């Protein structure tokens, strides 16, 4: 395989004059299950084999993807990729340049305690049914439960025209639990995800009982929740909400491709964008975390990247192309979902660093406000407008957590809101999730509990 792909890349350089060429070959098996209530909808297994070829010719990118390892198909694909690049380069204003690297040769293996490919599908079925059973048995008002399961195991080869050759094992285990509860005309909804790159042993920690009860309890508690008042209020955000805020509201703006597209961070590098207590990292090196890996899909080692230090933006997330534009080194954030798509800048495990407050200290000065514990979706815009939906929230009255609120969401301008973070807790949690940017990436995000002295709260109906 290595020889074949080297020859294909060689052809791009020799025959088509490519300035740079890379190949990514993947050999992946997936197992998927969907449980609805206590029924398995289908047990699914699949194979996805293929090669992605990317070339830089005359300053433009060409890309071709084929679901095959056959020499003939690959030669055809590389010539297509080069021709595509050539066609795209016709109208080029600024030729693309990339940061060059040294040749790396490495073999990355995973050593799971329980390899999902060795766990019988019957056991996976049993575990997912157990989650569903826990959810449904929790309370008669729980009306439905959907459990999805995915594991992905295989290898990915990366070669480029600089002589790099990386063979990397891939392992992901993921599950999502959804529940709805109903009482009269009130419908509530609750969701949780489990994700790991360590192995199937994640379910020994995130046990069916633990996950199932958490989801069911939230759906039921929300039944008696009231709708929040609309307007600006002080709030304590839980690690789960801080995570999605750091990821959606700030993180995307710090993906250098989006920064260059005109995100509000463009002219803010080196400047204060948040209060002194805010420090944010994007870290690809946390062992077993859902967003971790050793090398990215441009063959660059993952690292721990400091984005905001004590309120000042000190770094962005880069691929080879944006790093060249900013005259820095790539940060290992180039990721491709699979061989069908090209790598783009993605987050890994993104979080706010903890400081020194206890939860009680964060809440004690709030006469009336909200405690937003868990999110349901979030989205940001380049101008810094963000929205985060809340699936679990409570009132804070005179420093104490009070009654639950339903269907709240928070919004505002990211940088204004980061300036309003006035106290950061000493606890820390990291939550797995999936991020969409045209492609899906497995990530984590998190942080400690955090107090924001003012945030816009969108009420329910």
């Amino acid at each position, binding site marked *: 395989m290595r020889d074949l792909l080297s020859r294909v890349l060689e052809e791009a350089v020799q025959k088509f004059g490519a300035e740079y060429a890379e190949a990514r070959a993947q050999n992946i098996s997936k197992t998927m299950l969907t449980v609805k209530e206590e*029924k398995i909808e289908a047990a699914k297994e699949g*194979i996805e084999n293929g090669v992605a070829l990317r070339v830089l010719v005359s300053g433009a*990118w060409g890309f071709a993807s084929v679901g095959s390892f056959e020499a003939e198909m690959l030669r055809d694909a590389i010539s297509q990729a080069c021709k*595509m690049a050539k066609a795209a380069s016709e109208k080029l204003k600024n030729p693309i340049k990339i940061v060059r690297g040294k040749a790396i040769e490495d073999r990355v293996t995973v050593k799971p305690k329980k390899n999902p490919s060795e766990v019988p599908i019957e056991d996976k079925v049993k575990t997912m049914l157990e989650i569903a059973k826990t959810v449904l048995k929790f309370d008669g008002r729980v009306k439905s439960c959907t459990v999805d399961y995915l594991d992905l195991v295989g290898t990915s080869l990366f070669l480029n025209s600089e002589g790099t050759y990386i063979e990397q094992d891939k392992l992901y285990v993921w599950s999502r639990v959804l529940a*709805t509860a109903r009482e009269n005309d009130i419908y509530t909804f609750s969701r949780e995800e489990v994700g790991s790159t360590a192995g199937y042993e994640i379910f020994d920690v995130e046990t069916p009982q633990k996950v199932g009860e958490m989801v069911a309890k939230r759906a039921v508690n929300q039944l008696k929740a009231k709708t929040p008042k*609309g307007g600006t209020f002080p709030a304590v955000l839980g690690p789960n909400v801080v995570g999605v805020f750091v990821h959606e509201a700030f993180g995307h703006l710090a993906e250098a491709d989006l920064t260059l597209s005109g995100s509000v961070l463009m002219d803010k590098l080196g400047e204060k964008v948040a209060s002194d207590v805010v420090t944010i990292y994007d870290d690809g090196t946390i062992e077993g975390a859902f967003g971790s890996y050793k090398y990215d899909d441009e063959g660059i080692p993952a690292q721990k990247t400091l984005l905001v230090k004590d309120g000042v933006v000190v770094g962005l997330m880069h691929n080879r192309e944006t790093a060249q534009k900013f005259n820095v080194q790539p940060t290992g954030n180039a990721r491709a979902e699979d061989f069908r798509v090209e790598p783009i800048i993605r987050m890994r495990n993104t979080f706010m660093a903890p400081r020194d407050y206890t939860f009680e200290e964060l809440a004690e000065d709030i006469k009336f406000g909200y405690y937003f514990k868990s999110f349901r979706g979030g989205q940001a815009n380049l101008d810094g407008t963000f929205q985060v939906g809340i699936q679990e929230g409570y009132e804070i009255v005179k420093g104490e957590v009070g009654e639950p609120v339903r269907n709240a969401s928070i*919004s505002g301008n990211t940088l204004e809101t980061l300036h309003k973070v006035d106290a950061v807790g000493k606890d820390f949690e990291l939550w797995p999730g999936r991020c969409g940017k045209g492609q899906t990436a497995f990530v984590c995000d998190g942080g400690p509990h955090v107090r924001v002295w003012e945030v816009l709260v969108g009420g329910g109906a």
Partner: protein
Amino acid sequence: MAALKEEEVLSLAEFAAKSALKKGADEAEAFAYEGLTTTVAIERGQIAKSSRIVDRGLGIRTIVNKAVGFSYTNILTDKAAIEKTVSKAVKSARASKPDKDWQGLPSKKPFPEVKGGFDKAICELSPDDLVKAASVMLEACEKTDKRVFPIEGGVGASYLSRAVVNSNGVAGFDHGTIIECSLATVAQESGEVTPVCFEFNAERLYKIDPEWVGVEAAKQAASALKAKRVETKPTKVVLAHFALQQLLYYTLMEAIKADCVQRNQSALQGKVGEKVASEIVTIHDDGLMNEGLRTWKFDGEGVPQQKTVIIEKGTLRGFIYDSYTAKKERKESTGNAFRAGYLSTPRIEATNLRFAPGKKTPEELVGEIDEGLLVYSVQGAHSSNPASGEFSVVATPAWKIKNGKIAHAVKGAMLAGNIFEALKNVSALANNERKIGQLVAPWIVVENVKVIGK
């Protein structure tokens, strides 16, 4: 790379389905898929890349003792690999648990004729043709307003084919084309950056208008400058195409799925025959719509697509079904089993959900509003509560309407409410129907939406 021929695709699917029966499946179904896509991408003001993606595969569903198994592969050149996949599907079914509600794969029915789904001209486009279209769009944008920066977009052309064969005698092949151009823009002026604005044009036939997309994407961004805050109060809101599509996708489009209804997850459960929307609201799911983006002869399990009434003059008439949920209620499937290529088993999705248009032009619609909000797009619709229909989103970009005219752009306004209440408060419809993903709809006016401004 040339597309696979009808006979080739059908014979692959037949081979897989037969082989599953031989290996002990009670029933079997094979779904073959091919997608050939060429795109030219715009990044930060220039055409900078181009790609060609070939994706082929076969998904096999098997049933053993009422338990369902599924397996797929993207290696089609080798019969041994297909047989291995079939064996896995049978093994998966054996590992799964019987479902007492399983009543068999669909049986054979004649396929309807569909129009405007395939255009040979799209298959024949070269990368150079797509580069040309992309640069027309880019130049049109740049010429329209100097303050506007085209951040990303492109032109993509696809050929898609699908075949379904099952052990009940269903055997069908269909193919089609899609071409799309899109442009996302922001405008910048004296330190202000607008939210991302977006325009696109997607068609089954080769008749996209990249110049229009470029001009509109630029105009939209330029008019989003100088945004001001608005007051918190109940407001008359015009939902433009994107905003409506985003809000309905996570709420109404979930609530009409028979699966959600049967599983107590739909606020529309038990409401057939009742008023669920304003008198002027009529919605069909039309899987046969001429040139519809999701028009095909048959759905993901080989059931003919059809036109299904969902809401008629405000009254709920029915839901959308696949064959599993239909058989559970002793009904006929409405042809709404959707497949995401060969990678998954079918799930229920709308085809072309068509919101019947009104008679007014969009200008007339806005002209009749003394005070209101025109919302092009919303942020955060995916955080809606799919079970209850409650939403809480940011309107962006949006404009304030005063005395029948657009007064100024609006920033940071949140909209909160319940989509089923909103449907009851629809007071007017424009005549500017257009296709966006699964939705085909005009601009609509909704009374009394809770707007949280500052």
